[in-house]
């Protein structure tokens, strides 16, 4: 049901763009006003969210330690999974963000109890989620980078190089970018497991289906533009450059699919800062990953530490138990006579 709501929502967005830019002839609004506003909302929303997180302090250093600590000199420390210095922590974060290291650990529980005699609970390696998540995210990244050719004149060499590698298989005309198919595979897998794995379906919300379907729709509309409608890229670049340099010209002769694509991207930009997609920023701020395991070595300051919280004092303890302590021959600060 939640998946269907999300699908209807995405289709509605497609219809809005088709009608708005097509039938209603509001090309200027859909080419300039909507994406411009969306971009501002994205940037402001993203920054505001990060500032909002950063405003809350990190009272305690609580890294999840995933390997041997630094202790005695002759015991090798697992520096990447249990860092004790800044550079080691940076390495942990780098691996986390670039290789999805924690997700790579993933296992799947298998419970065999059919015969009931020798029940086995096993944990088998399960890297599918990691693989498709990597495919999805890297394809997304490369696609975003490739699109920078529309924003920059002249097109930087690095982007030309990315395009070259991405189309290295040289199949289909216009030449197929591999990332276009990979992002469909990645997002398709992520969606399929939500739909077909009962546990995943149980925890999934509209908040989960909607962005996936939106991104799939963006990819599909983009591919339609390139491979089927074969839109006029130069005309689009003029629009985009106009948007970034504030030289707005009424767009002419661009296929309607462009406006659909752009409207879906605008929706994603607006939706981004208010959604789980902010894991892009949040992953950098997670206190179980971005801190060294070093509070036995170095002091960490908690800004709201309350010095008024004191332990139940020894004096109060001795006052309560002085007699029996005295009788038991335990050392005392004040013997019963002094106290009396």
């Amino acid at each position, binding site marked *: 049901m939640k998946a269907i709501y999300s699908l209807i929502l995405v289709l509605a967005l497609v219809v809005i763009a088709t009608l708005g830019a097509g039938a209603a002839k509001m090309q200027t609004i859909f080419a300039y006003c909507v994406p411009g506003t969306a971009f501002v909302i994205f940037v402001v929303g993203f920054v505001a969210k990060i500032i909002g997180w950063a405003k809350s302090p990190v*009272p305690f250093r609580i890294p999840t330690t995933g390997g041997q600590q630094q202790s005695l000199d002759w015991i090798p420390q697992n520096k990447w999974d249990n860092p004790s210095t800044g550079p080691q922590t940076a390495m942990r974060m780098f691996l986390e963000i670039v290789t999805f290291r924690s997700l790579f650990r993933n296992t799947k529980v298998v419970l065999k109890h059919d015969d009931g005699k020798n029940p086995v609970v096993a944990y088998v390696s399960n890297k599918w989620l990691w693989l498709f998540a990597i495919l999805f995210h890297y394809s997304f990244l490369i696609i975003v980078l490739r699109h920078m050719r529309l924003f920059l004149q002249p097109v930087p060499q690095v982007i030309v190089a990315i395009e070259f590698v991405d189309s290295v298989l040289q199949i289909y005309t216009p030449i197929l970018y591999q990332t276009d198919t990979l992002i469909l595979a990645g997002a398709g897998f992520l969606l399929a497991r939500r739909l077909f794995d009962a546990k995943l379906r149980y925890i999934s919300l509209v908040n989960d289906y909607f962005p996936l379907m939106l991104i799939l729709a963006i990819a599909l509309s983009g591919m339609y533009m390139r491979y089927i409608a074969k839109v006029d890229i130069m005309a689009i670049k003029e629009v985009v450059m106009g948007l970034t340099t504030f030289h707005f010209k009424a767009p002419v002769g661009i296929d309607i699919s462009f406006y659909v694509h752009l409207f879906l991207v605008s929706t994603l930009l607006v939706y981004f800062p208010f959604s789980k997609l902010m894991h892009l920023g949040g992953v950098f701020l997670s206190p179980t990953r971005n801190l060294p395991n070093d509070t036995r070595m170095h002091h960490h300051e908690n800004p709201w530490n309350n010095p008024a919280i004191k332990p139940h004092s020894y004096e109060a303890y001795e006052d309560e138990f002085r007699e029996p302590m005295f009788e038991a021959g335990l050392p005392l600060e004040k013997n019963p006579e002094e106290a009396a």
Partner: protein
Amino acid sequence: MANILKPDEMIRSINYTPPATEWMETPIDLSPGRFAYPAKLDKVEYLMHEVPGVFGNPRTWNPEDADWKLPSNWKEIVVNGFKERLDKYRSLKVFMDICVRCGACADKCHFFIGGGDPKNMPVLRAELMRSIYRGEFTLAGKILGKLTGARVMEEDVLKEWFLYFYQCTECRRCSLYCPYGIDTAEVTMMARELLHLVGININWILEPAANCTRTGNHLGIQPHAFKDIVEFMVDDIETITGKRMNVPLNEKGHEVLFITPSGDAFADPGIYTFMGYLMLFDAIGLDYTLSTYASEGGNFGLFTHSDMMKAINGKMYSEANRLGCKWILGGECGHMWRVVNQYMDTMNGSLQGPQMQTPVNPITGTVFKNAKQTKMVHIAEFTADLIKHNKLKLDKSRNSDIIATWHDSCNTARGMGMFEEPRYVLQNVVDQFYDMPTNTIREQTFCCAGGSGLNTEEIMDIRMRGGLPRGNALKYVQDKHGVNTMACVCAIDRATLIPLADYWAPGVKITGLHELVANALILDGEEERTMNLRQEPLPGFEEE
């Protein structure tokens, strides 16, 4: 043990298919056996007096009743408390926002693996709170409600929190696998703090916390009784070794203050571990003292509220100062070391007196640089250093009847990273050692299912279910290698793993690390040993 299913029946009862109703519509089950008993009125009142602002609404109540006798403004208290914690903890704020519900954590929780209740999937456990976050604090959640997984605070939600945040042992296994490091322990801690504000609590946590505050230890052992216990142990050691040793208590002027969980002073098999410490200290001539005022290494404040944790923990430095000790040696414990390693100096570092110094092993000269700030060393680190420098005379053959495996405690694993030190010690005192399967040890270790204050009898069904992953891994090495002993460095484990092993892997006994060390340890001037610390005959001395 309460009336619970037999192991094979329990295994067969596990079903990972979620119910047909969505989780927000699935009613909660508050029947007996599903929850731990609420705290006794006098304990709550005592703690309210000792640590103001943490506990509220003292009363006698029963979770089975429809009326939980909440204060009229309970909703306001909880929502405001939630807001306050979002501003105090970046962890909470980030964790409320960034979960993508990828489900990587879902089958990592021992309670889910052994029970199949979807609300025990870490992602859903956190959603119990996240849904309120969305409903109370985000615009989209307020407008769109359930469509975006949002809901508002209601009494049933509070009851659901009580059920499921007391079915989390704060073991952090889920956090290891989370691509964003979302830590359910952190979420559970916050939820429990909020529950305390309106008087929802469990006795198994608050009574130890109150005891610890008043008598110095969770078990409520008063100073003179503590002395008697130590005397008993000294007597037993004399019976076993022929040596009578002097154990300083509350004495000033010693170099080291030794603090261990009071569980070691009270029941089998912890007492053997305690005897092990005493024998070790005697063997190396350590200049140390015990304290009755700081006679607790553990800290049930960790399972309660950060202020409670700080107040209990502060005794360690206060007592080191009063007695003039240079550093603190800590005994075998799990959650104690989460506190010492990740919270202690931050909370109470300012209490350290000028006499405290970076710990140096007086026998080997090793400087414990990793403890230069807290001035506190784990005894497994200490003993590993002694053995590495050949300072202990060990006779492994006394443990030759033992085929051991090692249980990594959650907190020393994922809140510290102490893996090699205890294994090194263990392998130097026993000949036969086999680790459990890779995915169940070290950083991936499974909880005993009784941590974070849940080691109480009335929830035995939940505990045994949660104990399945550990129990099954233990059974595996028992069948494959004949393992008959599981050693650990955690006082809660030494209590909880016994029923767990009896249930899932009968025939395996549980020991502390230093029990095995002391069995192998040759003391100067001791008589020939014919029995182990449990006063069972050593190999070769069995009666015909």
